[in-house]
């Protein structure tokens, strides 16, 4: 999809809502980091920045494990999302994605999700995947989903009772058919 970048590439500079030190980034640049953050906020919600304060650094590091061509595709995709053609078509707004309100960003996301163009669905899925993975990797979110944590940090998990087994202790174990 990289060939589309020049066509779409008359976007305005992304909105800067967080501090980004570009010198610490290896795979994202300041623009792509701001766009990615705006996307993640649209996927997760405004609480995102509180629960995953190091999101940009975390994803930049993660991208280091990716194939080079995948990294490039993501950076190109972010520029496309920010372009006003995309926000006009998918969100009926003539501003860069990162400048849109949360409801407007979500309207763009929803239309990308439903798009007949596979590449836009791929971009949508990448945004959801990256944001949701980073968010639910954060210990600060685990209470929300009643997750107790991992056994090496909470060895008591392994000393607690196993999940209830209906045929124990009173029933005999079922016989495999």
């Amino acid at each position, binding site marked *: 999809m990289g060939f589309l970048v020049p066509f779409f590439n008359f976007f305005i500079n992304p909105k800067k809502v967080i501090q980004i030190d570009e010198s610490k980034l290896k795979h994202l640049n300041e623009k792509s980091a701001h766009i990615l953050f705006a996307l993640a906020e*649209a*996927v*997760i*919600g405004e609480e995102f920045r509180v629960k995953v304060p190091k999101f940009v650094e*975390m994803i930049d*590091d*993660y991208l*280091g*494990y*990716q*194939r*080079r*061509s*995948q990294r490039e595709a993501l950076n190109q995709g972010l520029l496309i999302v920010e372009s006003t053609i995309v926000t006009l078509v998918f969100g009926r707004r003539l501003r860069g994605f990162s400048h849109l309100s949360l409801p407007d960003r*979500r309207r763009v*996301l929803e239309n990308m*999700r*439903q798009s007949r163009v*596979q590449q836009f*669905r*791929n971009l*949508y*899925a*990448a*945004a*959801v*995947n990256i*944001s*949701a*993975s*980073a*968010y*639910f*990797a954060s210990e600060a*979110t*685990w209470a*929300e*989903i*009643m*997750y*107790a944590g*991992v*056994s*090496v*940090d909470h*060895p008591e*998990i*392994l000393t607690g009772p*196993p*999940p*209830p*087994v*209906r045929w124990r202790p009173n029933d005999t*174990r*079922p016989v*495999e*058919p």
Partner: protein
Amino acid sequence: MAGSIVEGRKVGENRTLTPEFCIIGSGAGGGVCALKLAEAGFDVLVLEEGGNVPEGQGHGGTSHRRPSFTEREFDMYKTLYQEGAARLTSDGGVKVMQGRCLGGGTTVNWSACLPPRTETIEHWRNHFGLHFTPDNLRPYLLEVVNFLHIHRNDRYNSSAQALIRGCTALGYHWGNLPNNTHNCRECGSCGVGCPYDRKQSGIVTWLPAAVARGATIYTDTKVDRLVRDGERPPEVHAAFVDEKTQATGRTLIVKPRLGVVLAAGAVGTPSILLRSNINPNKLVGRRTHIHPVTICIGRYPERTHPAYGVPDNMMSTQFASGPVGYLIETGSFFPVLNAAASLDYGPELHRVMREYYPFGAIMYAHHCSGFDPKQDYGTVKLDKYKDPELEYRLAPDNARAMKHSLVEMTKIHLAAGAKSVYHVTNPSIEIKSVAELGKLDDISFEPQRATVFTVHVMGGCPMGAAEKQSVVATDFSLRETPNVWVADGSIFPTGLGANPQVTIYALALRAARFICEKHGKPFTLNHQQPGELPWDF
């Protein structure tokens, strides 16, 4: 004299080594060959692209043996899987999860151990001339069963219990899926590396045994290509890489005196051959197969603690036969895995995670594929940076079977008492009763219309008796290239229809036997204690 494990990322100079055998890959195939060739007295070098996972006292108590296995999903997917567990088929349609660490897939799989499907090996015999039979595979399978302590662990987690209840109610088959674990702690973390060394993966079994017999393992060593030199074994040109597989600037050249064993897996092995311009019959990378996996999550009235317990020791073979048959299995699932499978966002994503994660049970179906000669299935290619890329097209009969599996797994969940069943489709589908199953009629498996993933990649260097229609001969030797053997899942001419690690182990044992016999060295199976295999085979 014992060998050693050398961490390539720490090597400060270029090196040249001259072992007798160079084995590329330390997963199921590479580990077996390393041990058996070292046992036969060969000087063995193993090259692994991923990082070492050294033993040591972890922070989780005295039984925690691998400090690098923190069980933190995001960090573990990043460091233990290819491309940070974000490897995708080229159209983005299938997530491909493959290990990239010492022990390869054996380090990160869920410990499920099944033999090959009898009908698959019959198909291989009839269509590709591979003379595998239950009888002649039995000693190799027995060796694997005994060495890896493959047994039936019947302590079932909540997802497994749901499968039992649902299948019982519907009159469907259910049964134990044997595991290669020993005194399992039931932390549920098989998929991110067993921190307690209870899973009998390569890093606990084949590899340390090989090192004890003199093998040397280089981790963080990415093979670029083989360089052929007439009838001599090819040189292996590799680069030392950091934990992100970025070259450190130091290189390794291996000049094996006797041969090379390729065991880099069904994406890795074809890509090395393609970079080396070695392409017997122009078939390298073609007809690469996966077991496409569909998932659905049931929401139950009580909390299920879905992360904990033995992950994958229950299955239903109700629909497992036939060219596109599927095995239903269960698993443990963690927050990131759950969230990454979803195609929802915003408040709906939060609702699904709140309602389904704590009360969820997961079922998934591995679909067999690769039996239709008219379909292309997958092709491993190189991208512009010469990194591997898998093009894959779902065959129409697989797509039909995948819809069928979603319907059946939904029925099983509902029969087990689920209040609702969530499908990771776009848009997501929630089903609360059998009357709503029609909602699944229009499911599409086009990219990002539904989450499809795979943890089993096979083929790409198909073995066959016909000289012009295969990449690997029936003695595991690479065609058109002297002194090179292939001993991994890439030799499968079709999908297997069962979790492949045990089959790869068994076939790699056979490969090692051929290599030993060619060089007049003894080959023995040392763990032939009589006993029943834990499966009907």
